[in-house]
């Protein structure tokens, strides 16, 4: 069973007023995000609930959800590390930094640590190219990365 929390309900209300009443489908990205903020990922039950709210079939919700890369349909770590690997970061050696990060966390890219603290993902361009190499952890950007800086950041996250 999935139910939106009180905080989520308030957030949903704020989102729905942005669109014409007959166009509430526009809020689907927001509702998926809110469900994910609440539970860490978007479950099939959450998609059903979103469908009920917006008069959409669960299959439709899933087809939209699967199009975008920022929704997780399975549980992820408390911190999701999105590591940019695109050209500007690549020119500044992001491959080695990514490997360093994976080693430090003792996982492969794409995996979650056993204590469910960190998930490490490859990301496409994060639009901070002139401060490359760049990663994003949950909603925070970290720029001009070095191995030492990465160690510091990860050690500070508990």
């Amino acid at each position, binding site marked *: 069973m999935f139910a939106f929390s009180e905080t989520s309900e308030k957030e949903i209300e704020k989102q729905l007023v*942005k669109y*014409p009443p007959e*166009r509430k*489908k*526009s*809020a*689907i*990205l*927001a509702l*998926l*995000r809110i469900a994910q903020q609440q539970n860490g990922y978007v479950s099939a039950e959450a998609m059903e609930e979103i469908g009920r709210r*917006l008069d959409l079939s669960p299959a439709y919700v899933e*087809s*939209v959800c699967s*199009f*975008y*890369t*920022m*929704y997780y349909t399975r549980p992820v770590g408390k911190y999701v590390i*999105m590591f940019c*690997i*695109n*050209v*500007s970061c*690549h*020119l*500044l050696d992001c491959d080695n930094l990514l490997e360093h990060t994976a080693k430090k966390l003792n996982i492969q890219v794409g995996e979650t640590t056993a204590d469910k603290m960190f998930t490490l993902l490859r990301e*496409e*361009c*994060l*639009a*901070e*190219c*002139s*401060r*490359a190499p760049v990663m*994003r952890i949950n*909603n*925070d*950007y970290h720029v001009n990365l070095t191995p030492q800086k990465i160690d510091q950041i990860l050690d500070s996250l508990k």
Partner: protein
Amino acid sequence: MTQLLFKHINVEGLANIDVYEKHGGYETLKKALEQKPEEILETVKASGLRGRGGAGFPTGLKWSFLAKDVFPRYLVCNADESEPGTCKDRELLLKNPHLLIEGMILCAYACRVEIGYNYIRGEFYDLCEIFEKALEEAYERGYLGKNILRSEFNLDIHTHLGAGAYICGEESALLNSLEGMRGEPRLKPPFPAVEGLYGKPTVVNNVETLCAVVPVVEGGAEAYAALGTEKSKGTKLVSVSGHVRNPGNFEVVLGTPTSEIIEMAGGMREGRKLKAFIPGGSSVPMLPAGKVDTPYDYESLQAAGSMLGSGALIVMDDSANVVKETLRIASFYMHESCGKCTPCREGTRWLHQILGEIESGRGKDENIELLQDISDNMSFKCFCPLGDAAIAPVLSGIANFREDYEELLSQAKAGAAAE
């Protein structure tokens, strides 16, 4: 140095409305509201301002294409910034959100729009919060809402967060995404100005374009058009990244030699020479060092065989291997192809696979021709411009840096012979 968008960019606390107003913020709006909407439209037209999102379409002309007398109509700001190498909109939104709001209000007034959305890429959650706070401040001061500054003009602006998909930067895919669909491009025409959001006339402009409307209206069309070249007016934010000493966003007058922009970014690193540069983001052809004096403007970069694109100048020195960087870019397009049309969905995959083989020392001589052949089968045959974007680095890399390909291929041959 003429600084229009970046004039106050490093002023402490500029994102706050008091600080913004102290530096002349919203004064342009107040004066503009004394003019008729058509006059503002004329000013933007006459200024020669062109879209800064990638295509470079004349902004005023686009506004004038809005279907007449059809209401409601919408303004959508494109803050999806995801073209690899591009990070200028992020800096504007981070440090000067009110400039964008003022620009959006001016555009909405000129175009008689009463509802605007700012489509912000999902990764910019932090910027969305900053922008929403700025919106609140602007409502409190009466710059947004009903009867703005007693002009009888109404405007509401909302944020809309994306969720990770490069293709949503393409305006029609963006509109689908805003309508709650998968972000797949629409068939054009009809263009958004005729049938856009919810089937209504819609202006879609890039963050930087809308910000530039403020200095255009503030200083007048003539002053703006006095800057730049014949076909490229005004200033442009250039995101310099890669192998330079001090990468960053720089505001330059259009027509400035590319080499000077690289110098602004600190020049090349110690002991290194320029090898290649991509002037306008990953979607445009890369150029060899010999073209670095090309004036940075729409027409000169085009004449040099590339494009100004989004204004992302990616610099590679002689430590870079063009095949390896092209592979990265190819992997990006494969990942970001929305899958709607076959030449792009399949072509991006094949380009990636063959480049991967060459890069890992398993290539064959005929692979170069194969890459060209696949590119030819994609060129102008894809549903949206992403397909053509994907082949630009491949074809330009082969044309200008064939030695990098041949080196890897001869290594592959030597490896095979040794086995």
